[in-house]
């Protein structure tokens, strides 16, 4: 079948069987290797992408399930050379160690802040529970989300 969908704001058409996993399409057909495969069972969140803005595991998604829909991967979050505020905050607070979980965590955090601009720690923990990090202990990650939240709200006030 011909699969038409949007990847990182770009209309994309691919010839597919319908049963490929989306993570394989992204990495192998589209060269978007920022999306990582960890457990392959929906538990670790390394493969998180945004489907119409909501975080989902791309290892549990089949290609035909994204027909007509919009996918955002870590490559699509920044605007050209300028980083998304969540990416900048992860770098600034040192919320990155080995980096394998980072694309998924950044996308889940960005989706959270789009939904709840100033989340509590409890809300952060709940929103990020599906993204496992085995290096940082999460403390710096929460600090990064808080920093991004402050920066995004300040930017929004400035623009008004």
């Amino acid at each position: 079948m011909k699969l038409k969908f949007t990847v990182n704001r770009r209309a994309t058409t691919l010839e597919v069987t319908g049963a490929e996993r989306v993570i394989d399409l992204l990495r192998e057909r589209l060269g978007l290797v920022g999306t990582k495969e960890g457990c392959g069972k929906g538990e670790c969140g390394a493969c998180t992408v945004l489907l119409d803005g909501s975080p989902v595991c791309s290892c549990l998604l089949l290609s035909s399930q994204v027909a007509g829909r919009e996918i955002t991967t870590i490559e699509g979050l920044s605007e050209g050379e300028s980083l998304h505020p969540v990416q900048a905050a992860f770098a600034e607070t040192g919320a990155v160690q080995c980096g394998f979980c980072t694309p998924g965590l950044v996308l889940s955090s960005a989706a959270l802040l789009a939904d709840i601009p100033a989340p509590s720690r409890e809300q952060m923990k709940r929103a990020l529970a599906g993204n496992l990090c085995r290096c940082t202990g999460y403390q710096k990650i929460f600090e990064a989300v808080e920093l991004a939240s402050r920066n995004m709200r300040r930017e929004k006030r400035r623009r008004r």
Partner: protein
Amino acid sequence: MIDVTTYIRPGSLEEALDVLASGEFTPLAGGTDLIPHARGRGPRKMLDLSGLSLDRVTRTASSIEVGACATHSELCRDAVVTKALPLLSKAAALVGTKQVRNRGTLGGNVVNASPCADTVPALLNHDAVAVLVSKDARRKVPVEAFITGPYATCIGPNELLTSIVCEPLEKPTFVSFLKLGRRQAVNISRMSLAVCLMMDGKGSIKGARVSAGAVFPVARRMREVERLLAGESPSKRLFAEAGALAAQLMVKESGVRWSTPYKRPVLAALLERALAEAASGNFGEQ
């Protein structure tokens, strides 16, 4: 990669039922149960339900019909569900992770029929009925009878679950839903309890509904406990008695296992807490 030989995504229910009539296709909803298990299990023919618009919630005079493909995230958000079926939205909110709730569906949770499926105890308290449709027939089966064993239901290979019909409870009813897991956020239940206390005008319990998940081989109502509560006034002693009775039932039915010394006191305490939470009205009145 997963092994799929044929993959179909029909755009209408009629077409989907035609395809299913062969008895060879496996329905695919959110895929959060199916896809992890489809890997390395040999080829399959899959029928993707995402084009069928089975995710609607509709309210009729006496009941609420929830489409089988409504996701857990939708059940947490939907205004009708959160107001009239708060147990169901709370149960859905406690499923897995954000990623899993965004994809996993009510229908998938029920048809997969894991003993720890979180929405099931909530559905049982609402006398939920599964609507099953095939090319030539349509039948309604109470969820309690639909699930026949761990990971087993009475659905036929040519049938689709299209919706689940729930009865809202008469007012005033106080409810609570508690889930116990290994860690707080992402979790497969070790135990879950759904409690409804229907009150009379004088502060006594007119009737109660109590369902347990991951306690018995199949999630079920604990009618013995419900009978104990009916007609009584809420008290710490009554709730402790109810907890003890639930623990007794579990041991009687599931036998003594390695986990029993842990589960017995924990179930008793959890039910006591769920009843106290419901009685306090903190969770919300329906």
